[in-house]
């Protein structure tokens, strides 16, 4: 272990930016966006410096730690606020600060007409700081602070335009659903402390070797709950679609590239727990497989370009979770897909933002069409991202997604066959809905209104898109060339024996390409050969209707959780009013009533008092006489 004093700057710089921008108020309106971008860029520079330092060391001494201060010290419970940068964290640090800086630059132009742009950059900086704390914390408790921090930043940014009630509701929905996941994480921390006596990653890893499988399974399941909340996985996935209410750069940074991948980070970071708890690991795979198909199916029916991309994000993170659930052989591929996805999905979201920018903030793809001619750069960068997500060689997704499909097939037995088919099917549906997005947006006839004048976005917007497009093309090859990423991450994960390869990589790639081709072909015949209506048709099959309503996820939540919850709370309120308040009021009434009865004795007439005293004295004497006789 190497110690370093410069890790803290990764977090401190963007946190400083956020603090200054929030405290300075309107005074910072003129230069706020520049400060925000500079802070993010300097954090990226620190990250690159750390990477170069790390590359110069051997595997064992690569992780870097920094102790900040003694945080909690109660009896046997000691937690230091400490940072740890290892081979896994550095991937995230570079992704967060790199993509984050590009999106800062993009936002300068995208948000230039918004009079609250300074506040936007303050929140973006806050998010970067919190996300870096999440991936740099050296214990589950430190991670938890960052975990809550990104939840807060996400809430603030989804509801950035909270003057619209629907947007404010969307941010609240995201926050509440995330809280359920957060509860899972806090339970996991509590169980870890109760059974293992420590919450630091190193401590838990060491203790997990002797811990009971039941305890580890409980921790693993709770961690999975946390991951489903933050990463919008089944069954806590419903918030991601509504989260698209936030400004598009937010959707690109938080709800595509970084924050929603925190669940994958959590599971990968806790690999030692899941490796020792097969039940929890199986659940991870199941959640990933369900979400993968769930998101893809929703994506096929969405007309809102951002919601289609959000559904795609859900589906792609399903791939990552599935990969992470496959054990030591899959962790590195999950991270690889996470990194390539960060590039191509952020790029496509920025492309969607660019389209909206040129189309008066219209998000309905049925009102697009033929934008290829008007926005050539956006078309090119979006198209490269499209090829990457489809997994067309040699674009990024080909290297990362095919590896997950291949690993799924090789998982063995019926599990391998089912997972392989699910991932292949997901790839086909992905091809269908992404082709649909491409066709509806960029080709065919124009379907927009007369007052809309599509135009290409300015340099500050297309430059980040272009850089991300380059990443979409090259990142897969660079990361998998000579198994670079796999070897880089290998020291962190348990050894895994060579799996018997049931299917050759070549066969998997050909199968995937065939499925993708089928998906493209269906989309092509359905949307390019036929007229696309500017208004979504109503006479569609029941499946389309269900898919348009996000596969009934909101209806389900309302029926199963919200309504009974409302009933429970109203019953509790009634009980409170009848029993608790009733008892309090009853005591008061009793005192009042007995008082008014007793008041009758107090007549105010001296003679009646005298008579009472007399009678009392007589009774007293009689009593004494009776007793003494």
């Amino acid at each position, binding site marked *: 272990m190497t110690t370093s004093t410069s890790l803290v700057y990764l977090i401190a710089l963007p946190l400083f930016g956020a603090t200054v921008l929030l405290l300075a108020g309107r005074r910072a309106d003129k230069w706020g966006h520049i400060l925000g971008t500079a802070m993010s860029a300097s954090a990226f520079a620190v990250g690159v410096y750390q990477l170069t330092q790390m590359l110069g060391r051997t595997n064992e001494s690569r992780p870097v730690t920094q102790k900040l201060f003694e945080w909690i010290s109660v009896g046997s419970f000691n937690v230091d606020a400490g940072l740890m940068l290892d081979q896994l964290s550095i991937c995230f640090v570079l992704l967060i600060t790199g993509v984050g800086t590009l999106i800062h630059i993009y936002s300068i132009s995208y948000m230039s007409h918004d009079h609250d742009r300074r506040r936007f950059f303050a929140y973006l900086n806050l998010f970067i700081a919190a996300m870096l704390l999440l991936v740099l914390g050296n214990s589950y408790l430190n991670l938890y602070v960052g975990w809550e921090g990104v939840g807060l930043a996400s809430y603030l940014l989804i509801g950035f335009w909270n003057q619209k009630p629907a947007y404010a509701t969307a941010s609240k929905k995201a926050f509440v659903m995330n809280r359920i996941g957060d509860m899972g994480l806090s339970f996991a921390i509590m169980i870890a402390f109760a059974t293992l006596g420590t919450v630091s990653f190193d401590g838990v890893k060491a203790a997990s070797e002797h811990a009971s499988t039941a305890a580890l399974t409980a921790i693993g399941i709770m961690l999975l709950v946390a991951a489903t909340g933050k990463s919008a996985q089944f069954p806590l996935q419903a918030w991601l679609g509504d989260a698209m209410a936030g400004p598009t750069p937010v959707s690109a940074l938080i709800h595509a590239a970084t924050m929603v991948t925190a669940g994958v980070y959590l599971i990968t970071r806790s690999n030692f727990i899941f490796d020792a708890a097969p039940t929890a690991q199986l659940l991870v795979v199941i959640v990933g497989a369900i979400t993968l198909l769930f998101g893809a199916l929703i994506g096929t029916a969405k007309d809102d370009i951002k919601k289609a991309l959000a559904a795609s994000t859900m589906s792609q993170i399903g791939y990552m979770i599935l990969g992470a659930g496959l054990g030591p052989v899959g962790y590195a591929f999950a991270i690889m897909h996470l990194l390539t996805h960060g590039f191509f999905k952020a790029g496509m979201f920025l492309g969607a933002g660019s389209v909206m920018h040129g189309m008066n903030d219209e998000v309905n793809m049925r009102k697009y069409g033929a934008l290829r001619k008007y926005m050539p750069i956006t078309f090119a960068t979006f198209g490269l991202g499209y090829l990457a997500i489809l997994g067309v060689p040699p674009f990024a997704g080909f290297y990362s997604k095919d590896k997950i499909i291949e690993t799924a097939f090789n998982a063995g037995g019926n599990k391998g066959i089912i997972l392989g088919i699910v991932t292949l099917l997901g790839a086909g549906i992905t091809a269908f809905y992404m082709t649909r997005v491409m066709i509806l947006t960029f080709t065919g006839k124009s379907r927009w209104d007369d007052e809309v004048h599509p135009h290409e976005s300015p340099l500050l917007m297309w430059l980040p898109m272009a850089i991300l497009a380059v990443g979409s093309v090259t990142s897969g090859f660079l990361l998998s060339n000579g198994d670079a990423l796999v070897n880089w991450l290998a020291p962190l994960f348990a050894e895994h024996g060579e799996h018997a390869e049931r299917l050759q990589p070549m066969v998997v790639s050909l199968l995937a390409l065939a499925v993708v081709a089928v998906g493209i072909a269906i989309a092509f015949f359905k949307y390019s050969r036929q007229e696309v209506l500017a208004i979504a048709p109503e006479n569609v099959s029941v499946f389309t209707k269900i898919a348009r309503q996000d596969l009934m996820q909101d209806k389900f939540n309302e029926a199963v959780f919200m309504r009974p919850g409302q009933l429970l709370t109203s019953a509790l309120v009634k009980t409170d009013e009848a029993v608790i308040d009733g008892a309090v009021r009853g005591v008061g009434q009793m005192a009042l009533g007995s008082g008014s009865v007793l008041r009758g004795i*107090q*007549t*105010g*007439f*001296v*003679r009646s008092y*005298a*008579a009472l005293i*007399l009678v009392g004295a007589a009774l007293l004497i009689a009593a004494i006489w009776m007793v003494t006789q």
Partner: protein
Amino acid sequence: MDAANYLYLSALLFTIGAVGVVVRRNAIVVFMCVELMLNAANLAFVTFSRINGDLNGQVIAFFTMVVAACEVVVGLAIIVTIYRSRRSASVDDASLLKR
């Protein structure tokens, strides 16, 4: 003469005083009845002193007389003040304390 007769007289005087306090409305008469009750008690004390052959009862009788004198001073002052403000010496009229 039997000492018990003095005790009977004392009880009779006390009863007359007590009935007077309860029955009469005029504050002066009520006051006189209170004095009657005090003196009935005094008579009893003195009688017991005689019966027991010591001076304790007589000493207490002196105390009672001093207290009664003070009480008369304060009580008459109150009655005169009430009469001045209300033009009445009836104890039933002065029943405003409960309100």
